[in-house]
């Protein structure tokens, strides 16, 4: 499912956070949204997911304007993982992951066989089967993050938008998470991820969108986007894109004066 936005503008508390962003995420690809703090990454993802109305411009899912989707239809094809890892009650990990099946369950219906299968698969994918019966509130930050990612995976949507899913994960779980995202993309899904780790983005993402001050200043493959000039313009750093053992790494040398 293709996600596309044109000249997108969005406002938060009377501040225009997105000032005309063009965006494209193709099925079968892992798309990264990067940029400095306050560049508008979260606002872009929330607007794409239909959680925040655009003040101008358009968003289309699979070629259809977002406004034409009912919230329930949208929830079946698009999963969204918020940056804040909120769990309000002492639900077990399995109960939290099961919430991802809500869009697929008719009102009043319990868990079906396919629901149970999706839940078990999501728990296994995020390596949290052992935690299934533990309350999420008692877990470490990284464990809770993985359970919440599993919740989004259990939704089995054609598109997944995840806001900083890797934050707070140890290196091993970061790698398995992105391998999982790559696998979802290889299955033909559309995966959009906001993140700060430019090396992870360069290594795993087919396409990188660099935001700065509410505008997209570059989009494309990692070597074309993460250039010395773009890193300087967006982050104000002297940075370098390099290959170590054949894998891309982005080094930040200095903060520019």
């Amino acid at each position, binding site marked *: 499912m293709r996600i596309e936005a044109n000249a997108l503008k969005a406002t938060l508390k009377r501040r225009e956070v997105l000032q005309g962003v063009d965006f494209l995420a193709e099925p079968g690809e892992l798309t990264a949204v990067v940029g400095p703090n306050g560049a508008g990454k979260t606002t872009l993802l929330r607007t794409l997911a239909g*959680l925040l109305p655009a003040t101008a411009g358009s968003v289309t899912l699979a070629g259809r304007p977002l406004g034409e989707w009912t919230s329930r239809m949208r929830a079946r094809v698009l999963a969204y993982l*918020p940056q804040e890892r909120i769990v309000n009650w002492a639900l077990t990990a399995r109960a939290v992951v099961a919430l*991802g099946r809500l869009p697929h369950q008719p009102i009043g219906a319990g868990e079906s066989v396919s629901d149970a299968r999706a839940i078990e698969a999501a728990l296994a994918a995020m390596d949290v089967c052992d935690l299934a*019966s533990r309350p999420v509130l008692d877990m470490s930050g990284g464990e809770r993050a993985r359970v919440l990612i599993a919740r989004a995976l259990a939704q089995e949507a054609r598109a997944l938008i995840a806001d900083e899913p890797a934050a707070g994960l140890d290196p091993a779980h970061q790698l398995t998470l992105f391998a999982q995202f790559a696998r979802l993309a290889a299955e033909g899904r559309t995966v959009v991820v906001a993140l700060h780790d430019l090396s992870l983005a360069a290594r795993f993402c087919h396409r990188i969108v660099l935001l700065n001050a509410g505008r997209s200043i570059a989009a494309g493959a990692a070597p074309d986007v993460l250039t010395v000039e773009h890193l300087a313009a967006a982050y104000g750093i002297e940075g370098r894109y390099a290959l170590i053992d054949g894998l891309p790494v982005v080094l930040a040398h200095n903060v520019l004066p």
Partner: protein
Amino acid sequence: MTMGGSRHFAPWQLLAVLGAAAVAAFLISLATGPAGLGINAAGEARLLIFREIRLPRAILGALIGGALGLSGAVLQGYLRNPLAEASLLGISSGAALGAVLAIQLGLSQLFALALPIGGLIGALAAMFAVIALAGLRAGAIAMLLAGLAVSSIATALISLVLNLAHNPFASVEMVFWLMGSLADRSLPQVWLAAPLMLAGMAILLLVGRALDALTLGEDAALSLGIDLAHTRWAVIVGTALSVGAATAVTGVIGFIGLIIPHALRPLTGHRPSLLLPASLLAGAGMLLLADAALRLMQPWVELRIGVLTALLGAPFFIWLVLRTRRELL
């Protein structure tokens, strides 16, 4: 699967046990009173006692306890706060103000239903005031603040009415009414309140799914296809109908909406949707038993049910505060 004492029952088992307990409490309530089972009374008198005194009282007890428990569970789930209950939305103070005004203006002397009708109008007025104050697209916090504002205004106006009461009998009637009671309620009052309470409870039972999704925050709930505007309306209107009608008939009965959901939450695996029917059944059972206990105490002490629930509820609240403090340390 069970760990940390979080769930020992399957959902249907829990609901079956609570349902059986509520039915038992209903029968106990029917059998309790100064005339006992009415074995000694003549046939006609016995029928009269059951139909005119005990039946309305038991039906009201079940409906009102259920409405209070259910609305407490809904509001705790919606506001994601274990300390929430219906009185926070200003609905019950609005109903109380309406009823007190009906006494002050002498309307309750003119016809018997003036008191509950005044209460209903007060509850609806409070509901519209909360909606107007919070705005149509309000989040949970804005709604809570609007509820507190309406509640404090209504409480201030109740004090004003009490202050200005023209004769001591009227003020005694008001004060007693404010304490809450199921005694001496007639079948017409049941017919007035029951449809509204049932409609309100039906609306509240439908938000369970939304409350489950809200566990993960408003953005996640929206992305799961939940219509939050619809949910907010259902919470406000459902609470106003069920608790408004309940308060209009019986006066203020506190703490059931706070205690019942809180006590049951661990038994439901902390799932907000399962907590709704569980709190409804347990609230009904608890209020019926409390009311039956009052009638057993009657030869020695004349106690109002609102006073009893407050006496039982306040220590529970203190225990809650202490436990929360321990968890924060």
